[in-house]
């Protein structure tokens, strides 16, 4: 259990702020009027029963969906509409509920692809693969190798990811997101479908990322044990509405949360 001092948390600067965000598909509300903040350096979990709008929330944060209304401020800059690549350029990285790796590429290439934004050499140098282009390639390979070391996936770096077992794929996907050196990392069920051992490994990676690189993390997870262990703060959604927001302990004892999970009608 991580229990940082409350004062410490309040002092932290707000990285992302969601104000009164609503999203709907063809008249059906996926998210209604949700507000919460994510502070720099924290691990924030978004939880809720199935269909609560958690993944939709991540999709709103990184610009894949445009909210019907509401205000999103990231790093002090408010935005209305944003293309996903702009989110990436501004430092939001993301993993997916169902692994969305580039299946035809090797693990190494997947991670190198995560460096795309950092690489600058143009088509002409790329055509020659010589001089500056090669230097750049090698420099980023070094970074990629650091990530590979960090995630202990050295021996599979040249294997096509489509052939890897699910747990490793999740790890490569995390590596790919890390390669972007994000300020905010969104993890959509990073431990889904894993066995206990794999979950422990993954939890450790998430914590290490948070501590070593200082990356702010927002994650969706179903395993309450994991959520309570990892996160500094928990946001609970149900049917697209925020029903609780606080430290793990606060949330655990919240009446609304218990009702929502037990399916009691309000």
């Amino acid at each position, binding site marked *: 259990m991580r229990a940082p001092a409350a004062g410490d948390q309040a002092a932290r600067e707000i990285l992302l702020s969601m104000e009164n965000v609503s999203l709907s*598909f063809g008249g059906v509300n996926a998210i209604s009027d949700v507000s919460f903040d994510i502070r720099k350096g924290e691990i924030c979990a978004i939880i809720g029963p199935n269909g609560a709008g958690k*993944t939709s929330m991540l*999709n709103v944060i990184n610009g*894949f969906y445009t909210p019907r209304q509401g205000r999103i401020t990231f790093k002090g800059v408010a935005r209305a509409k944003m293309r996903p690549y702009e989110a990436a350029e501004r430092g939001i990285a993301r993993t*997916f*509920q169902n692994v*969305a790796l580039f299946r035809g590429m090797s693990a190494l290439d997947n991670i190198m692809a995560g460096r795309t934004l950092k690489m600058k050499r143009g088509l002409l140098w790329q055509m020659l693969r010589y001089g500056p282009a090669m230097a750049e390639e090698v420099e980023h390979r070094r970074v990629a190798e650091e990530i590979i070391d960090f995630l202990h996936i050295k021996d599979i770096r040249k294997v096509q990811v489509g052939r890897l077992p699910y747990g490793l794929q999740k790890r490569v996907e995390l590596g790919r997101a890390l390669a972007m050196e994000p300020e905010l990392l969104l993890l959509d069920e990073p431990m889904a479908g894993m066995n206990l051992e794999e979950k422990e490994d993954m939890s450790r990676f998430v914590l290490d990322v948070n501590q070593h690189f200082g990356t702010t993390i927002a994650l969706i997870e179903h395993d309450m044990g994991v959520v309570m262990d990892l996160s500094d703060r928990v946001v609970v959604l149900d049917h697209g509405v925020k029903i609780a927001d606080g430290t793990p302990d606060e949330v655990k004892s919240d009446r609304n949360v218990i009702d929502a999970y037990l399916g009691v009608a309000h």
Partner: protein
Amino acid sequence: MDLLYKIFLEPFVQMGTAPDLLVQTLWEGMVGGMLYALIALGFVLIFKASGVFNFAQGIMVVFAALTLIGLHAQGIPAFVALALTIAVMFALAWSVERIVLRPLVNQPDIILFMATFGITYFLIGFGELVFGGDPKTMITEELFLPKGSWDIKMLGGFVSLQKIDVAAAIIASIMVAVLSVFFSKTRIGRALRAVADSHKAALSVGISLEQIWVIVWFAAGLVALVTGIMWGARSNVSFALEIIALKALPVLILGGFTSIPGAIVGGLIIGVGEKLGEFYWGPLVGGGTDSWFAFVIALIFLMFRPQGLFGEKIIERV
């Protein structure tokens, strides 16, 4: 100024001064469009139930017509030949399912699409090997299809309606009606719709995917046979038709890939549009615009309404 006149005024002046030609152009466009629609219908049947985009529909039209003529040339009476051709189309559907589709189940759509290229090429080679590459005349009289035309005096001129075209329109309407009833009223039809919505759902209610694929390919084969007879009666049966069949693709884009009414409406729009365009505006650019008109319309359409006239808007999910 002259150019502007030619683009914006002259065609309409022509339409006004020779209304009989306008009516004739519209009619020709509708007849051509109906044939595109029939080919598109074959595409839709297969796409709806199996998600396979069947590039081979065009060659199936040629193949069905050639089989019919070829069997008749062997001295088999026309209607027996017709029955045998239906059997051949069933055998084709069955082999396609057995040899091509079954091993490729669960592959990405684009792989299945490319596999139908293979079917196309195989059937071209096989058809030419068996029936020869020369165009054949359709056995219209033997099938009791009408010949000749009605020249109707109207609007200060005349409009000539080929009887075969009228017959084709009637037969096509009957076929569409039968197919609609089949899809909405019969058990198999409802099963087909279930498959269209979700393969897993279909499996869970105990419908064999294999059977359904054979049925839709067979249905598409029958549509191909009717199309082949009608088209063959209009001109003749040859492998060149395979290229015309590509026109069904823009029809699908307009009509949506899963909509039978869409195929019909799309076919008529494309048919009438390209004939009007070629007749009144084609001469400005040297003619021959109907080789690309339909495709460019489809392209523009794709930019603004990718799901087609009747398709549903697709929401992407992650």
